[in-house]
Structures are given as structure tokens and as C-alpha cells.
């Protein structure tokens, strides 16, 4: 069997000589001769100017070959996929040269997506578990049986006992429809992978300066003078982003700094690699900031005019002198001084982070610390700077924006009465009807409208099932679970998950693949698998990490007996009897709701983040004229999209008719708001402790208000005397919402936004970013030791939180941390991605082109630990976690991980505590490669704000098997 990463090299006698020749081979600069000759051929695309000389059509077989443009369904870079389709068959995949995001490039996953149209290992028809065996059933039977059971649970326990777990694999329209569907069902128990991916980013970053998304773009990294990556391995997780990173590294001579516990494939290309102990991010960042403050290297003018609360940060940072930082993180002070100096001398620089920073019990502290670093350097709101947060899935940004979340309706409106009033206006729904769909819960004589209460997050659904009913902040336990496009093995505590799956009354999986949810449990009845399609079998918009929306075309018709997600939602709506209400303004063709109508509906409601300007027509136009957009600025030069930024990165303010170009770099005051400029958002009021929170004397270009200002309301327009700019229709619409109280978020006409921007003001105000988030558990980001820490000596100085109940479930902190597990489980366990697979891996491990490249689950162990534990490279080992589970995997002995740290990829599934579950999959739908899940041994631990799971810093023991 081929086993990459362990052996690294190809099998066979040649490998030896190949390698030895490499070691000896050095090339001499003097011999660097130029060759003459006429340049011919299609290499233009290899530099960053796209375009091939000639695109000839393939000639195999008969029938016309049509090229369909779609977007890769793996990570969030948003690579264009060009599919050649002949007689309905996907016959070839060409590089999408015209895309400014990928310029034809793909990684292994992107290069393999044509396999989706083969779908050998797909789930081929609806299945029901009968006496422990999967049996084929019809769609009618499936919807009826599942629907009847759900209605029965609803009758007995209320709507909150059915959990609707959605997906970052939805397109925007499906994501929006799914959230709306949950609202009509009557529960906030709806969530998706963003919870366990970047929820701490969204919360931390939005609470710092207004919006919780990537501020600039992959392309804008071309402008960076320094690149600082912490807790991210884009070379494996977002390979095409390296196209942009390496361009800056090579052409700007930008230093690449990688901070990670693991010497990743990204670190291999770094100029500076900082190894630090998992879970000590805040200490590390404060350690860098200590040198910046100590030497007065911070951008004082930027801080004075645009940042609130930096003095309090300064106080906290003071205690993080080089000695203390080294004691906590392991990173030497001299190295961090060099890093600080590099960042200071190479401005603007960008800061990039991923799951290594977010998936911690204090993840929200980490994300805010990264933001504060950029604020101190004055790197925000400028091309080449920003916090470039790489999202994980192709549409996790979109699914987050459209509110597939337990704490908000679409557009981050939240769950307040005002939020519901807004969306019921958009839906033209009777608010009382929606109220009637939700439970009102009487607890201890107090009645609670569950409509306004955050639901259980996906990270905690198992506790919704297993926790004693009286400990839950909802009427009854979770009794039915719908996993709609979710890999359960991407979540921790899998032994308890198995128990939860078995305790449920009803388990429903809606997915193109059976997933680990089909095999983990030992249920005999009450489980269903419904085959949905991939995004290549449908069409619609998808939001890349940089907030750009791209429009996918349908490549092939749904395979086998699968149905598109939005059709399945409609079938359930039929069953529950609210189709007429839910699809009031959405046409339905057969059983399939119109995608374009759904886009237009959310365009009418998503004012908060400017998802209003991106009509289907504008998005399709952008895809058609991709080649008109500059590869660095993303701005169209001439042509029908002239002046637009590619994909209308949100906010694209106002109505589509207003033609706002989108905002490529957030908070950039060097541009007028009408051309994509912005200020920091006035989101946290106008004053705090007697100090103004508004920007001090600075404003975006051409702004008619030459100072900070609050967010716009109708009253403010009247006070400014600008209300005369409103049309009669806009005025009437505003009057109908709330008169002078109507604001830029609730005005359905877009008039307030239009008029504010006419005067070149940001609709959301002009404020300072805040470094102190007074409404969070740690207003100033603090280092806190992981629950399962190996450093007992640090627990006293940096303890975790007190136990508390939030998001409807009791959540443990100190009652875990107070136990010493470090003797029995001395090795820190962390996890991450491999380039060939994505997420739980059910899809990618079923693809032979990818599966061949990674055939076995493994654990990386440092040579010192391996020798001490008597483990040899390639041997089987048992990895045990402190909560009682153990898994059997191959040992890979490597210096990639430091001493005392072990790493496992999280994409594997289908083995459970040493047992192969292959025969439990429906026949022919088992992934090619199976393996143990790291999450079987991963432990308890949740972020103190968002309930993000802790996967990056726990403990384990390893022994030879």
C-alpha cells in the first residue's frame, strides 16, 4: 500500500538515487544563462496575467461540448471549475484561467471534482434502517414517515426537540431557505459547521470593528509587505491561496512568518517559523506586542483616531515580558523581538489565521488578540493589511451570513423582537403566525418565548440529547436529529455522540454520502438516509472567504435518485403544511423552488451586511466577464462591470439598481463609500465611560461629515436635512416600518443607505474599533490554560472559567481543569487538515483519485517521544484520551511535531476504537478509505462565548499496539 507522508517518497529502487542526486545538486548563479528563441505557446497563464493563446475544443466522441462554469466545493478560495459537458456527461475539466481567484490553479481536491459526476460511492436512493439493516425506500415513504414522527415529537415535546443541523455545503439560496425553514418549523435549534470552524472569529472580530469576516482578500495579499500566519496551514487547507502569498513573498520580498505548534507545509516556505505550545496564542501575541509597545513602535496616530481602549491592553501586555512568554508558550524572547521588528519594518502586513486559533476554550480571546496586533500596527483598512481570515468550506461564509446559526436570523440580525419583525416584513408573513410556531416555555413560573432564545449549538447537540432534561434551558431533550450535510466525525467526544445517536427517537441524514452518521451507532430502527446532490448538480450563488459572491452553473443533472437540497426542504414544508406561506414570493417549478427568486428575496432583507446589491443578474454578469477584473484589486476595468469589484464583495450597499461596486477591503477610508470605502462600524454605542467611541477627526474620502458619526436612522437624515433626498416611495416605505426610528438595517426601500452614500457616508456610522469587549467574559483577551493542560504549574496563574449554563446547556470549565490528567496522559494532542481530504472526509475519501494518495490514518509523534515510548515509525499504536476512548492508528515518527506534542488529521472515519465498520455502510456506498477519527479521543471543551469546540489542545497517551 502506498503510504504518503510516512515514507514521503515513491517506492522503488530509483528513489534512492533520485534523492541522493538531489542532495548534491546545487545550481550556480553564474551559469544562469539566458536562452534565446521565440516564446510560443500558452504559458502566459503561468505568470499572474491570465489567458491562454487558444482554447481548442476537445474532440473525443460525438455531440457538442459545452463548457459550464462552476466553483469548487471544497475550501473557501472559490476556484472556478470549468466543466466540459457532452451529451449530459461531464467529460473533462479545464483550468478556469479567467478567474481572478485561482487563475486556472487547483489543488488536489479541486483537480478531482469531476469525479463527483461519477459518484461511484454515493448514496443512491433513500434508505431506512430496518432491524439493523439499510433498506431502500421511496422518497414519498421517507418524507411521510420522517414527517409523521417529527410531528409526533412536536406534539409531545415541542418544536425544540427536533434539531435542524444545516451545512456550509449549501449554496446561499439553500442556506437562506434552510434558516427560513427552521423559523417556520418553530425552533432556533438550527446551526452548521461555522460553529466549529470560525464562530470565535465571527464573534471576536465583529465585536472589535463591526463585521466578523475576512477584511481584505486572497488577491490583496499581493500588496502585503509582510505575511503573518498563526494557527493556519493554508498550503494544505487553502493551497491556491499560496499562489497569492508566494507572489507577495517573491515580488515584494515580504517576509513570511508562520506561528504554529507544528512545522507545517506552510512553515516549510516561511522565512521565520515560531513553534509554540498549543493553546497559548494570546500569550504569544502579547509577547510580540510587548516588544512593539516597549519600543514605541505602535502606530500612535492610527490608535488615537481609530482605536478605543488600547491603554487597557497596554497594561495587560506589560506582564508578558519575554521570560513569562517563554515560560508559557515556549517561544524564545529573542525570536519574538525579531518577529515584532519584522512586522514593524514591513508595513502594511497581513495577519492570517485559521482553526489553530479559533478552536479553543478561549478562542474568542485569540481572535481578538490577532485583531489588536493589527490595530497596534495600524495595518487595518489598508490594501496589503487586514485580518485575512481564511474560512474553511466553500460556502461557510455564505451560510454564516445567511444565518444557518442558532443565535441569529439571516444577516446577523439576532433573535430579538425587532429582528423577527424585520424578517416577517421581508417574508410578508404575519408575525403572530410565526410566534405561534414556537414554544413558550413555563419555567419556575416565568414564561419564556423560545423564539427569542439562542438554540443549542451544533457542538453541543449531543448534550441536548444526553443531558438530564431539568438541566436544559428548553422544554425537553433533543429527540430527533437531522444531519443535513454534516460529518459527525468533525466533532469531538464521539463516544458520547454514539450514545446520543442511539438514544434519539429519530436520526435523519440528508447528504450525498451516507457519512459516519450511518455507521457510528448501533441503532436497529428509526434512522433514515436521504440522498441529496452536490453543488455540481444544481446552481446558485456561493460566497468565498473574501465576501465575493460567485454564481455557479449547473454542470450535470442530479445523479441516481438524489434530489437538490431546496427541493427536499420544499417536500418537508409540504408535509408540515407551510409551503404556501414559506414560498409566498418564490416560484416553484414541479417541486423545485426558483433559485433566482430566493436570491432576490434575501436581497430584500440583508441590509446589515449589504447582501442587497448582489442580484442574480449582476452575479451572472460577473462570471461571464471574469477576465475583465484586475487580478490584484479585483476591480473591473471597462466592460459591462466597469468599476465593480469581482463578485460584489459584501457590503454591496443598497438595491441592485443603486449599482454599488461592493467592498474589496473593509474599513479602507482612502476610497469613497460609493466606491467601496468604509469606516469602522459604530456598533457599540457612541460613548463608554464618558469617552466617545466615534472616530476622532477621520472619515472616509469625500465624506460630507468630517468626523465620527453614529449609524444612520431616518431621524438622523432629518436632523442633517438630507431627508429631502428620499423619493416619495422610499419615504412611504420608511414610514411604514417605524417612521423616524427606521434605521439603515430595517429600511426595506434602501433609501436611508442610498442617501447616506450619496453624501459619501457609511450607513453604519464612523466609529473607533474597540480593543476591550466589555460584554464578553474576558473584556481584555487573556491567556487561559486549556481544560486538559499539561502545565499544572500554570493553572493557578492562568485558570480557566467557572462552569456556567449558556446556549441552553450546562458547560464545564474549572470542574474539568481542576483534575490533573497530565501524569497519565502526558502528550498534547492537536489536529488539523491534509490537502487531499476535506472535513470529515466522507466525500473525498470516496474519490479514488484522492483516496489513493492518503490511505491510512496516522499520528505524528516526535522522535524523542517515540523512542521513550518504544514506538517505531509505521507501527500501529493505541492513542488514548482522558475521557476513556482509544483509537488504533499508525505512528509517523517525525520532527514536524515538537517534543511532547502529537498531531492527527481529522478527516478519517469508519473505524471505531479498533473496529472496522465497513460492513455497516449501505452496500456500495462505503468510502474507499476508512480510518479512526481523531475526534473519538478528542475531549470536552467549549469557547466561553460561542461554544466552539476545543480540538487543538488536549491530552493523550500513546502506546504500541
Amino acid at each position, binding site marked *: 500500500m502506498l503510504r504518503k507522508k510516512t515514507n514521503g*517518497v515513491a517506492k522503488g529502487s530509483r528513489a534512492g538515487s533520485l534523492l541522493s542526486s538531489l542532495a548534491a545538486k546545487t545550481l550556480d548563479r553564474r551559469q544562469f544563462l539566458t536562452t534565446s528563441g*521565440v516564446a*510560443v505557446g*500558452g504559458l502566459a497563464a503561468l505568470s499572474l496575467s491570465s489567458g491562454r493563446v487558444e*482554447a481548442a475544443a476537445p474532440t473525443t466522441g460525438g455531440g457538442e461540448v459545452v463548457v459550464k462554469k462552476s466553483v469548487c466545493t471544497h475550501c473557501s478560495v472559490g476556484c472556478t471549475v470549468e466543466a466540459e459537458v457532452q451529451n449530459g456527461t461531464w467529460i473533462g475539466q479545464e*483550468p478556469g484561467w479567467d478567474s481572478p481567484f485561482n487563475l486556472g490553479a487547483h*489543488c488536489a481536491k479541486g483537480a478531482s471534482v469531476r469525479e463527483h459526476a461519477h459518484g461511484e460511492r454515493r448514496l443512491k436512493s433513500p434508505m431506512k434502517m430496518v432491524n439493523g439493516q439499510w433498506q431502500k425506500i421511496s422518497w414519498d415513504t421517507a418524507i411521510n414517515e420522517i414527517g409523521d414522527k417529527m410531528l409526533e415529537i412536536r406534539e409531545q415535546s415541542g418544536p425544540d426537540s427536533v434539531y435542524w443541523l444545516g451545512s456550509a455545503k449549501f449554496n446561499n439560496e439553500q442556506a437562506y431557505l434552510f434558516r427560513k425553514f427552521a423559523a417556520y418549523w418553530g425552533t432556533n435549534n438550527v446551526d452548521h459547521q461555522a460553529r466549529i470552524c470560525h464562530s470565535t472569529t465571527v464573534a471576536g472580530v465583529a465585536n472589535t470593528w463591526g463585521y466578523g469576516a475576512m477584511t481584505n482578500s486572497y488577491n490583496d495579499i499581493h500588496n502585503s509587505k509582510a505575511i503573518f500566519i498563526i494557527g493556519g496551514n493554508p498550503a494544505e487547507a487553502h493551497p*491556491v491561496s499560496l499562489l497569492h502569498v*508566494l507572489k507577495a513573498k517573491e515580488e515584494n520580498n515580504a517576509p513570511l512568518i508562520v506561528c504554529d505548534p507544528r512545522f507545517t507545509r506552510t512553515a516549510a516556505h516561511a522565512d521565520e517559523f515560531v513553534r509554540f505550545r498549543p493553546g497559548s496564542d494570546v500569550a504569544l501575541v502579547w509577547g510580540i506586542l510587548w516588544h512593539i509597545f516597549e519600543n514605541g513602535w505602535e502606530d500612535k496616530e492610527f490608535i488615537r483616531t481609530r482605536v478605543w481602549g488600547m491603554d487597557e491592553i497596554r497594561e495587560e501586555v506589560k506582564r508578558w515580558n519575554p521570560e513569562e512568554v517563554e515560560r508559557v508558550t515556549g517561544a524564545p524572547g529573542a525570536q519574538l523581538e525579531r518577529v515584532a521588528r519584522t512586522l514593524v519594518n514591513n508595513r502594511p502586513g497581513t495577519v492570517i489565521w485559521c482553526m489553530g486559533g479559533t478552536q479553543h476554550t478561549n478562542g474568542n480571546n485569540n481572535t481578538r488578540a490577532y485583531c489588536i496586533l493589527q490595530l497596534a500596527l495600524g495595518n487595518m483598512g489598508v490594501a496589503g493589511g487586514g485580518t485575512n481570515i481564511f474560512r474553511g468550506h466553500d460556502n461557510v461564509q455564505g451560510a454564516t451570513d445567511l444565518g444557518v446559526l442558532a443565535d441569529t436570523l439571516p444577516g446577523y440580525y439576532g433573535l430579538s423582537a425587532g429582528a423577527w419583525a424585520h424578517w416577517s416584513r421581508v417574508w410578508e408573513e404575519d408575525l403572530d403566525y410565526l410566534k405561534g410556531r414556537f414554544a413558550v416555555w413555563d419555567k419556575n413560573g416565568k414564561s419564556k418565548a423560545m423564539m427569542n432564545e439562542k438554540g443549542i449549538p451544533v457542538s453541543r447537540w449531543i448534550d441536548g440529547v444526553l443531558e438530564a432534561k431539568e438541566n436544559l434551558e428548553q422544554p425537553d431533550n433533543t429527540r430527533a436529529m437531522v444531519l443535513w450535510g454534516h460529518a459527525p466525525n468533525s466533532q469531538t467526544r464521539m463516544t458520547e455522540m454514539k450514545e446520543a445517536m442511539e438514544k434519539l427517537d429519530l436520526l435523519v441524514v440528508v447528504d450525498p454520502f451516507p457519512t459516519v452518521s450511518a455507521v457510528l451507532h448501533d441503532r436497529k430502527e428509526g434512522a433514515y438516509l436521504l440522498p441529496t446532490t452536490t453543488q455540481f448538480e444544481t446552481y446558485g450563488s456561493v460566497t468565498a472567504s473574501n465576501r465575493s459572491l460567485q454564481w455557479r452553473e449547473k454542470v450535470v443533472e442530479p445523479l441516481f435518485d438524489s434530489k437538490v437540497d431546496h427541493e427536499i426542504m420544499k417536500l418537508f414544508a409540504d408535509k408540515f403544511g407551510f409551503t404556501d406561506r414559506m414560498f409566498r414570493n418564490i416560484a416553484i417549478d414541479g417541486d423545485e423552488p426558483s433559485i433566482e427568486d430566493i436570491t432576490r428575496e434575501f436581497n430584500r432583507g440583508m441590509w446589515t451586511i449589504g447582501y442587497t446589491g448582489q442580484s442574480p443578474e449582476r452575479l451572472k454578469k460577473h462570471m461571464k466577464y471574469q477576465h475583465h477584473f484586475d487580478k490584484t484589486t479585483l476591480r473591473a476595468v471597462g466592460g459591462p462591470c466597469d468599476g465593480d469589484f469581482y463578485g460584489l464583495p459584501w457590503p454591496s450597499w443598497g438595491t441592485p439598481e443603486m449599482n454599488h461596486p461592493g467592498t474589496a477591503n473593509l474599513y479602507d477610508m482612502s476610497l469613497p463609500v460609493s466606491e467601496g470605502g468604509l469606516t469602522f462600524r459604530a456598533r457599540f454605542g457612541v460613548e463608554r465611560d464618558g469617552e466617545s467611541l466615534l472616530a476622532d477627526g477621520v472619515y472616509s474620502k469625500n465624506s460630507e461629515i468630517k468626523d465620527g458619526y453614529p449609524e444612520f436612522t431616518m431621524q438622523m437624515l432629518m436632523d442633517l436635512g438630507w431627508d429631502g433626498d428620499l423619493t416619495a416611495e422610499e419615504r412611504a416605505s420608511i414610514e411604514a416600518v417605524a417612521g423616524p426610528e427606521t434605521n439603515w438595517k430595517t429600511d426595506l426601500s434602501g433609501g436611508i443607505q442610498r442617501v447616506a452614500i450619496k453624501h459619501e457616508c457609511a450607513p453604519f456610522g464612523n466609529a473607533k474599533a474597540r480593543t476591550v469587549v466589555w460584554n464578553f467574559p474576558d473584556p481584555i483577551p487573556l491567556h487561559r490554560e486549556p481544560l486538559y493542560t499539561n502545565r499544572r504549574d500554570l493553572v493557578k496563574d492562568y485558570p480557566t472559567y467557572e462552569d456556567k449554563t449558556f446556549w441552553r446547556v450546562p458547560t464545564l470549565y474549572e470542574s474539568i481543569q481542576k483534575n490533573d490528567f497530565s501524569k497519565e496522559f502526558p502528550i498534547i494532542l492537536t489536529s488539523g487538515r491534509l*490537502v487531499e481530504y476535506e472535513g470529515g472526509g466522507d466525500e473525498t475519501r470516496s474519490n479514488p483519485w484522492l483516496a489513493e494518495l492518503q490511505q491510512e490514518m496516522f499520528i505524528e509523534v516526535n522522535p524523542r517521544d517515540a523512542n521513550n515510548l518504544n514506538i517505531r515509525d509505521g507501527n500501529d499504536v493505541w492513542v488514548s484520551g482522558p475521557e476513556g476512548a482509544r483509537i488504533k492508528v499508525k505512528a509517523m515518527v517525525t520532527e514536524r511535531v515538537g517534543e511532547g506534542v502529537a498531531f492527527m488529521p481529522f478527516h478519517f472515519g469508519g473505524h471505531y476504537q479498533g473496529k472496522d465498520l465497513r460492513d455497516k455502510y449501505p452496500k456500495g456506498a462505503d468510502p474507499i478509505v476508512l480510518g479512526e477519527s481523531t475526534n473519538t479521543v478528542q475531549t470536552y471543551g467549549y469557547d466561553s462565548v460561542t461554544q466552539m469546540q476545543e480540538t487543538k489542545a488536549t491530552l493523550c497517551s500513546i502506546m504500541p499496539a
Partner: protein
Amino acid sequence: MALEGKARAKFLVDAERCIECNACVTACKNENEVPWGINRRRVVTIGDGKPGERSISVACMHCSDAPCMAVCPVDVFYQTEDGIVLHSKDLCIGCGYCFYACPFGAPQFPQAGNFGSRGKMDKCTFCAGGPEEDNSTAEFTKYGRNRIAEGKLPICAEMCSTKALLAGDGSEVADIYRQRVVSRGFGSGAWGWGTAYGKKVP
């Protein structure tokens, strides 16, 4: 045409850019329907997990003076005017001499029967098919897609995530690489050129 006139088809792997993402390997499998177990291209990592780790993508380099051609007892190889080294599977006897001669480990042999007997040799064709009629079904079945005849370049390089793998006319490949070297310095060099083309620098 992507390759015309006096083109000399070459690959170049820029080890400063290769991130071992395996797009080239997968794209090759996808484009040519290469079966499980046969790897026309693979990515090799040197110093895995250690400072200085570098990866390179390796396949047939279509050498100027190709050792495989020199040793083949039944003369299955031929070199196109563009310098692409191709072979005839109809003539191949599966002896494996080319495999021993190749400095890049490019020739692949499917298992043909018991006792380790080899089937017809398979290797990278620079996406240029074989002796059969261009883009015929017979050519596709034996050698994969003929992109060169379609006016396109090898898919592995066209889809490379970081443009580390370059393919095309040697002088143009060299131009692109030279531009990079001018802006960033030399780095790990153009790996394999000395062996393949008898000179050390592009």
C-alpha cells in the same frame, strides 16, 4: 497551437513554490483516467518535516538524450519534433529496462499476471497521446488525452496550485522562471534540469 515552430517541450519544477498539494497528480489521473496504482506523476518531499523541507513534482521529463530510448530492446520510443518522448504500447514487451535507465523513475508497469510479470509500460506523455490517430478512442484508451493536439498544454502544469510546475516550450518556461529568480533570488533551483537536459540552468 500551444507548441509550434521550434518549440522544445520541457517541464520545470520550482521547488521554492511547490507545496506538495498533489494537484498535478490528481489532475493527471482525472485527465487521462489513469487507474489506481499507476502514477505517471508523483510529488516527492525531501527532508519531510524538517527545516529546509522541499517538495518536487516528478514525472517523465522528456529528456533530450533520453536514456529510456537508448536501452529499449524493441525500440518502442520515439521523440516528437517538440522533444516529447512517447512510446508504443503495442510494441512494448514489459521488460523494464527503461525503468532501470530512467533517472526519474518515470516508467510504470501495471501488474499483468502472476509471478511479477509486467504489463505494458505506462508513463507521462506530456499530454500528447501516442502513435495512434490524434484524439482517437484507441489513443485515449492506451495513453490518455492528447491535449497537445487540441492546442493545450499538460494539465498537471496548467492546474498547478502555485504555478510551481511549468510546462511548455523550454525557452518560455525559462523566461518565467528567470523572472522569478530575478525578483526573489535563486532558492532551490530548477530541480532536475541538469539531469534531463544536460545543462544546469534554464
